[in-house]
């Protein structure tokens, strides 16, 4: 009897957007955090200038009354919806709504709290806004994960949100926010540093893949070579990044001075060269380990069959072993790309450029918003790279195996 009921209920329960009885545990946590963040923590901080102490303002003092109402209504609808057991689409709408209204609120508060003509005042999000924003973003991610969209849709969603955020930032709506004031005074160098940052991360990963994948393929079948390769790379991985920079200054400086043409390529003790070498070195082990693991996972009967049907060693590698190891290798590359986008911040320390420039300037000037100007784009880049490569890995698996 119970089974019959369950079967009968299924079509209705599966319909997206339908509300079933009961509470959603994860959604309840999200809703509680959103409520707490807005009701007990300050939404914004207003400071008379960049480095002065600020005044923390609760949502109702940071926004004009009409906007407070709008924020209250949207979050008051979204949070209870997240608590209920709703379909994933409705969940995405609720979380997305909360995210959008928080972004709007930040802009409204910045306009509201900035006196006309004031160019020194700084308005920035405070703990309540950040907690609410992070929670809403997690809830949105959770809703999207429950929808389990295919890789094509995930790439489209990523591209769509990148374009939308770009347009929104250009619209000038948030220009009174402190982080965009920091941007305004550095808009000439910002684009260049983003490109340097992305270039450092991508080129170091590409170089590491170009070295580590062939090296692993060659070394894997030979036990001694395989052990040597992995232990050397393991050793490299244990060197702290600051120490590695220190160790690179002397040899790279020497190369820059003595090898003809090296200095023209930008090779010197400090600058982009040591940053690139460090990022490259840190990327080697994950790529090599993933390649070795991926090739090890090729079943022995499959390898035997490949040889048995008359494939040469090269054909076996290219047609059987590498295609089967590809998801593992791509997963390794995804890990190092995300890792290196984050790690490339340290290039700012040795004059290598990148978004780390803003982070370390901000730290030395005690200007938190400048740190954020370097940190937030780094986080966004790393997240986008993770989503993009995950989707690519799924695409490579083909539709039948994904199920």
């Amino acid at each position, binding site marked *: 009897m119970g089974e019959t009921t369950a079967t009968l209920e299924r079509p209705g329960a599966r319909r997206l957007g339908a509300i079933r009885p009961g509470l959603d545990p994860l959604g309840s946590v999200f809703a509680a955090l959103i409520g707490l963040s807005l009701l007990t923590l300050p939404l914004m901080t207003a400071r008379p200038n960049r480095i002065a102490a600020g005044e923390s303002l609760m949502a109702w003092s940071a926004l004009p009354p009409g906007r407070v109402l709008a924020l209250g209504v949207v979050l008051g609808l979204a949070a209870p919806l997240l608590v209920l057991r709703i379909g994933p689409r409705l969940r995405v709408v609720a979380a997305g709504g909360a995210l959008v209204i928080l972004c709007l609120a930040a802009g409204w508060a910045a306009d509201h709290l900035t006196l006309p003509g004031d160019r020194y005042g700084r308005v920035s999000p405070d703990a309540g806004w950040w907690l609410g924003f992070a929670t809403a973003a997690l809830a949105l991610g959770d809703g999207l994960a429950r929808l389990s969209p295919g890789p094509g849709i995930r790439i489209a969603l990523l591209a769509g949100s990148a374009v939308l955020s770009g347009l929104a930032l250009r619209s000038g709506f948030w220009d009174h926010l402190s982080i965009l004031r920091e941007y305004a005074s550095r808009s000439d160098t910002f684009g260049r540093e983003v490109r340097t940052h992305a270039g450092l991360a991508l080129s170091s990963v590409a170089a590491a893949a170009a070295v580590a994948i062939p090296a692993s393929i060659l070394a894997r079948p030979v036990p001694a070579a395989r052990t040597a390769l992995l232990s050397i790379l393991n050793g490299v991985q244990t060197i702290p990044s600051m120490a590695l920079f220190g160790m690179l200054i002397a040899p790279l400086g020497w190369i820059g001075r003595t090898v003809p043409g090296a200095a023209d390529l930008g090779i010197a003790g400090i600058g982009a060269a040591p940053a690139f070498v460090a990022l490259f070195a840190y990327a080697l082990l994950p790529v090599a380990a993933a390649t070795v693991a991926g090739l090890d996972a090729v*079943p022995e*009967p499959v390898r*035997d*069959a490949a040889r*048995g*049907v008359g494939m040469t060693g090269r054909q076996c590698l290219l047609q059987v072993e590498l295609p*089967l190891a590809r998801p593992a290798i791509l997963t390794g590359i995804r890990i190092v790309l995300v890792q290196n986008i984050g790690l490339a911040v340290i290039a700012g320390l040795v004059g290598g450029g990148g978004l780390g420039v803003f982070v370390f300037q901000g730290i030395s000037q005690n200007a938190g918003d400048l740190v954020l100007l370097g940190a937030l784009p780094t986080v966004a880049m790393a997240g986008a790279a993770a989503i993009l490569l995950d989707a690519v890995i799924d695409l490579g698996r083909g539709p039948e*195996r994904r199920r």
Partner: protein
Amino acid sequence: MIDLAHVSRSFGARTVVDDVSLRVEAGAILTVVGTSGSGKTTLLRMINRLVEPSAGTVRIAGRDVRSVPPHLLRQGIGYAIQGHGLFPHRTVAENVGVVPRLLGWDRRRIAARVDELLGLFRLDPALYRDRLPAALSGGEQQRIGVARALAAEPPILLMDEPFGALDPIIRGRAREDLLAIQRRFGTTIVLVTHDMDEALRLGDRVAVMDAGRLVQEASPAALIGAPASAFVGALLGGGDRAFQLMSLRVVDDLVEPGAAPGTPIPAGTSVRAALAESLWSRRAALPVSRDGVILGRVTRAALEAQGAGP
């Protein structure tokens, strides 16, 4: 067709195959049977050079296999293994067509050959062509594995425990398929198994291996009749010899004129099955028919006589 002359193989100090000489006639099935570790798989793999002999020579059609580059040699020899070894990232059609593609056949010819083979193994090409191995049952994977081995119509087929992973009913059908296809193409087959019943049923000749040595090579009936050693006797299972002999023979030669009661058994039934039917239905004689025509009868006494030792 296949000649092995004093072939040995050692891995380090361990001799896995020890001075084996064997000959497989063209179009015949040789089954190689032995316990695990007897060297039977290594012996098989030396024929297509997946393992190189430490000593001795392997000749195919009179030609030393070492005179051909290994990958070219293997493209001309079908190879099917236990657990099928299908390429998991390739579709059924790509798996079956792998050797023709290596041989450089054009696409249309490969597609036609793939469809023909799938049909031969009773798999609807339209339904199975684009599936991945993971979406097939064990029996289907096994058939695809054999179809792949036969794709380029090799004169020789090497099989290593090809039916090991199948349940008894599907295994029986797979064996019948193999015999039908072997008759159709006249393929010379060397099949390795640890199952003596399988070796006796499929082989024209049976080679018994023990600890790397060839203990006996004989026809199934001769093997049952005169096991060369206690080991062969033990592999045969001792007590069942009479029945093993009976399952090798069919009733056709025992038919005598006369009538018998009850449902007829078809010609081609094994003596063992006929005797079982005679005992079960309490009939001293059974009518034998071919295509619905009664040929005569076979008596229980005649059936029983087939179980007698030489």
